[in-house]
């Protein structure tokens, strides 16, 4: 291969690595601690933050009409410019300019608030995206909770009435993962990470300090969904009753909105109860909209549910949710709906009424629920799907690492690694002189490739991953040492520098390949068979070996070829500095 081609390849690899490394550098170097914390916020916190920000921006602008917009709020200038685009006056500088751009001087500034809120939401979204591209620290380093679940195939066998096949179990586990994901989303946990592990395990990782009771709630969500018959007549009477008892009404609404216990109004019969009707807002949070009276006894619960998906009614073109029930559930539901045609049916999730639909026909295993907007239908389909797990799970292990412990160990650990790295770099220069510097360049490049690859694959850096990183750096140094020793041997035998370099590399080639291939065999086996902690180690090691092969055999070789001419500087001992007969 010609030198120019080799240089080109090296530059292309370098460019690709920098591209993948960029988010990591941006995240750790240029994102403020407050912004980092925002990415861990739950949907509720995001909402509160955005609205709070909108409020304070508006207040500030109104109070400081004549001054310039301060730096911390400079984004509103961009928003205002966007607003006045094409309307002539594009010179927006002061607070008054911004207010007038949104015509906020005349009204209550709702348009401005909406724009700011929208901007904040987008800002957090962008940050979340950036953080997902950057190399993140594992839970053992930054703190959080990890839960390992064992699935129990016998529960699936029970539901199917026969032994499930391997592919059925596998599909059920995938469905479990989807359900757990949406449940966690609904419970407002921050940044969940759910994945399958091995044949029969599910790993859930939650960053920060999740509330244990909420974790319990989403794990034990089974049977929370149910169909209840609603009572229209009593509902109307209750609403009329509330009109004359506004104090009790306020109390009950407050209790319903916050899931607190309350005393049922006396006019409701014993077998029925008052429940809140909730809708999901744009943040994905549930909001109380009205109340309805439902029968306490559920007509059917979610345990009978097989699947749910959105579709369109063929005649009316209205969005509908198609629900599939098990055979047993179908026959129960058929008997029930047949007896109650024309009556309203409430779909209840976790005590919240999600929708009320009128029974038009006797229904069996295939149930069409209509009367929503497309978005609502989609939400409902997700909701119905999240009702119960097709294959039940038990907690195999659960680990919580306090954020303080994580932070501390990371800070000290990083410091120690940096010290160690500098010692190694220094050592190489001292003992191998200028050639040592080439090895150091290869070493740094090795680290760049590793971090870029880990970040690019979206992996996290765990404690055992750092162990793999250290071993890889060690092996990269070793490869260079083997090469240099070979070159020195050649020089001692009186070979000219240029020839010594090429012979040295070719002699070292198989030694390095052999030692690295045996190690990569071990790493690959561990990736496939090891537990999750071991796997983190093996993945980093495998990536490190490949990159160290590239840096030592290709990059170092190229740099040596480029720098070595008549003279070579490869030892602290002067006598190798120039070629000398031995």
């Amino acid at each position: 291969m010609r030198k120019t081609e080799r240089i080109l390849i090296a530059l292309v690899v370098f460019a690709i690595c920098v591209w993948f490394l960029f988010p990591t550098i941006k995240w750790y170097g240029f994102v403020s601690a407050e912004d980092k914390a925002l990415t861990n916020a739950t949907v509720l916190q995001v909402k509160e933050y955005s609205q709070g920000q909108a409020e304070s921006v508006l207040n500030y602008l109104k109070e400081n009409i004549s001054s310039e917009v301060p730096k911390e709020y400079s984004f509103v200038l961009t928003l205002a410019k966007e607003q006045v685009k094409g309307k002539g006056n594009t010179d927006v500088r002061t607070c008054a300019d911004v207010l007038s751009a949104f015509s906020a001087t005349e009204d209550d500034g709702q348009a401005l608030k909406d724009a700011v809120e929208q901007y904040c939401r987008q800002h957090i979204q962008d940050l979340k995206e950036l953080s997902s591209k950057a190399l993140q620290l594992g839970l053992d380093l930054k703190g959080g909770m990890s839960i390992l679940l064992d699935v129990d195939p016998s529960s699936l066998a029970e539901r199917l009435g026969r032994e499930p096949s391997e592919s059925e179990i596998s599909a059920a586990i995938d469905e479990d993962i989807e359900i757990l994901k949406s449940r966690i989303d609904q419970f407002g946990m921050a940044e969940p990470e759910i994945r399958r592990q091995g044949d029969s395990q599910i790993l859930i990782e939650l960053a920060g300090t999740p509330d244990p009771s909420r974790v319990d709630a989403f794990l034990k969500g089974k049977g929370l969904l149910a169909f209840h018959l609603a009572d229209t007549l009593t509902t109307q009477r209750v609403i009329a009753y509330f009109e004359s008892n506004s104090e009790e009404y306020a109390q009950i609404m407050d209790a319903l909105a916050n899931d607190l216990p309350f005393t049922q109004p006396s006019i409701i019969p014993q077998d029925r109860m008052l429940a809140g009707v909730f809708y999901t807002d744009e943040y994905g949070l549930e909001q109380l909209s009205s109340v309805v009276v439902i029968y306490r006894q559920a007509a059917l619960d979610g345990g009978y549910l097989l699947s749910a998906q959105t579709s369109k009614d063929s005649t009316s073109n209205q969005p509908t949710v198609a629900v599939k029930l098990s055979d047993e559930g179908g026959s129960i539901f058929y008997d029930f709906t047949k007896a109650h045609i024309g009556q309203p049916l409430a779909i209840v999730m976790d005590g919240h009424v999600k929708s009320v639909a009128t029974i038009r026909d006797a229904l069996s295993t295939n149930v069409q629920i209509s009367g929503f907007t497309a978005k609502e239908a989609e939400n409902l389909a997700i909701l119905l799907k999240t009702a119960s797990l097709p294959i039940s799970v038990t907690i195999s292990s659960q680990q919580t690492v306090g954020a303080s412990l994580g932070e501390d160990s990371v800070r000290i650990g990083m410091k120690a690694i940096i010290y160690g790295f500098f010692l190694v770099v220094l050592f190489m220069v001292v003992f191998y002189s200028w050639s040592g510097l080439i090895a150091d360049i290869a070493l740094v490049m090795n680290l760049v490739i590793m971090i870029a690859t880990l970040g690019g694959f979206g992996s996290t850096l765990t404690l055992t991953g750092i162990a793999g990183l250290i071993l890889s750096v060690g092996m990269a140094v070793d490869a260079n040492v083997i090469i240099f020793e070979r070159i020195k041997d050649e020089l001692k035998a009186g070979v000219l520098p240029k020839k010594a370099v090429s012979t040295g590399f070719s002699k070292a080639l198989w030694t390095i390949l052999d030692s690295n291939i045996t190690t990569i065999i071990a790493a690959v086996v561990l990736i496939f068979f090891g537990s999750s902690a071991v796997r983190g180690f093996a993945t980093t090691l495998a990536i490190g070996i490949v990159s160290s092969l590239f840096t030592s055999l290709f990059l170092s070789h190229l740099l040596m070829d480029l720098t070595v001419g008549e003279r070579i500087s490869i030892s602290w001992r002067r006598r190798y500095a120039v070629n000398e007969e031995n």
Partner: protein
Amino acid sequence: MKKIEFNVVKHRTIYLGIACVLLLASVALLVFKGFNLGIDFESGVSVSVKIDDSDALIEDVRQSLSQIEGVRVQNIGSSDDGRYQIRVKLSDNQTQREMENLINTLLGRRFSSFSVLESSFIGAKFSSSLVTGSLKAVAIALALILVYVWIRFKVAYAIGSILALIHDVLLMLGFISLIGFEISSTTIAAILTIIGYSLNNTIVIFDRVRESIRGNHNQELSSVMDYGVNSSLSRTTFSSVTTLLAVIPLAILSSGDVRSFAICMIFGVVVGTYSSNFLATNVLYTLGRTNALDILKQEEEEDLSDAAVAKRMLGDDEPKLKKVKSDRKKGGNDPKILV
């Protein structure tokens, strides 16, 4: 500067003796002292707490928790840190949450200020799967490495490198038992790292030894092998020193898991370097000397190494090589490879 040289093979009784003594000591430790099994290997709840009361002693912590049956309390880090690990097994009808709450309440009664650093729950199934999973992975990896080294070198080399690895793992386990570290994901990671490190070392040394054997057919096997080991000695030293340079700051500065990892690594690097230089080569020598297994490459004919080319130019041919082999079969203490 005087070059340091080891008579690795000549003094093999000493080197093998040291390895045997250390191995016996490790096995004895494993049998009689056993392991401080980490929470990863036992089902139960483990809670790490930091108690801010400066005058709190470990006895106070134990006493405050005395009503929990079978509770174990240990110091983490240095003893004046105020950090403790509390471990307890769960009975059938207890949940993790209940136990954590109980520990919280009991500590709250005795100490004015404390914080929970870490808490984990391990189910019975998890611990057994971690052990069997790790063992299975290591066994498969060793088998594949054996096959690879067999193909690239010869079976004697494969046996030598695997024995060296087993030596490293046993000594590491013995060390862990002696120091009283936990067997956990962390220490397993350290052992795996050393397996990789030592294997790498052994292969590099074997490569030199093989080259040395090929190139010097007319000398005593022992001195040829010694030459091979010594010619890679500066590389071995450099690599070990650089690895130690990377790990020592970690052992000095950090705490907890990272620190136990680093300490295990330092021990492992020393042991791994020893086994690659002195144990693996002597196993190879013993196998080659007694002719139990051939340590020369069979396909010498296709060998294009400098040594082989030079040999051919000097008029080396098949019958002579066969004669060498038959000579060796008659057996002498130190066979000479005649060309």
